[in-house]
């Protein structure tokens, strides 16, 4: 049982570390956010499972914390993403398709 708990904790911590590495290594803001939101959310989930298995009587509180992370992490990412699109001078590295542009440029068919 200890080994199972340990395996969850190590796997979760490794994912969080990789997410942090991604924030350093990837080139632009949105790619970094992809790394930070997805990998660290699953990582925290795994650490929470380890906590629930390993902490006597604390399982419900730890799992509640994990649920709150799952609900709030995407909302935080959403706000950062919105702000980054509006701010000037941030490299968002958009080279493909962009449907959002027309919302900010009224001359470009805004009411479609």
């Amino acid at each position, binding site marked *: 049982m200890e080994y199972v708990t340990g395996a969850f904790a190590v796997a979760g911590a490794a994912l969080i570390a990789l*997410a942090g590495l991604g924030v350093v290594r990837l080139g632009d803001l949105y790619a970094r956010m992809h790394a930070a*939101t*997805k990998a660290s959310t699953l990582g925290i989930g795994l650490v929470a499972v380890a906590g629930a298995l390993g902490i006597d009587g604390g399982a419900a509180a730890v799992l*509640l914390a994990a649920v709150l992370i799952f609900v709030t992490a*995407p909302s935080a990412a959403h706000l950062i*993403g919105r702000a980054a699109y509006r701010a000037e001078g941030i490299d968002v590295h958009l*080279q493909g398709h962009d*449907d959002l542009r027309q919302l900010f440029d009224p001359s470009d068919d805004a009411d479609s």
Partner: protein
Amino acid sequence: MNRLVRVALILAVWLALWSEVSVANVLSGLALAGVIVLGFDTWSHGPLILRPLRAVRFAAFFAYLLVLSTWAVVRTVVAPRDRVHTGILAVPLHGCSDAVATLIADAITLTPGTLTLEVRREPLTLYVHALDTRDLDSIRRDVRRLEVLAVRAFGDAGAIEGLAVDDTTAWRQP
């Protein structure tokens, strides 16, 4: 009925925080839930709807996608690829309540290659950042699948009717 569900939810969170079911905890939780539900009646997202089996299906699909997307992130971090095709696309939703739209937006952020950046009403549209926009239709299909599963689990009758409004073959052009 709606209020009873909310009292039950608040009580569940309260008990989880204490990590102990005792008479004192249940009574204090009920008192707190009563104050919150009666005193701060700000729930404006329509009725709470939950179809348990459909919800489990949504949760299972969501967990599967979360693992997939984490794997994709790990691969990208270890060996960064060219990112010359990142972009943003508009994805319309039909007749979802605010709560269900929030759930879908959250799920998109935690699934492979996509990130919700912006939400607009009238028409209800999510703007999704994608790491690879070479195949727009496949991204739309993935989002559509999440929408269908979420609405079937938590949507009201109007939202379920909205599912029939279009499918991927007749996608409304942004």
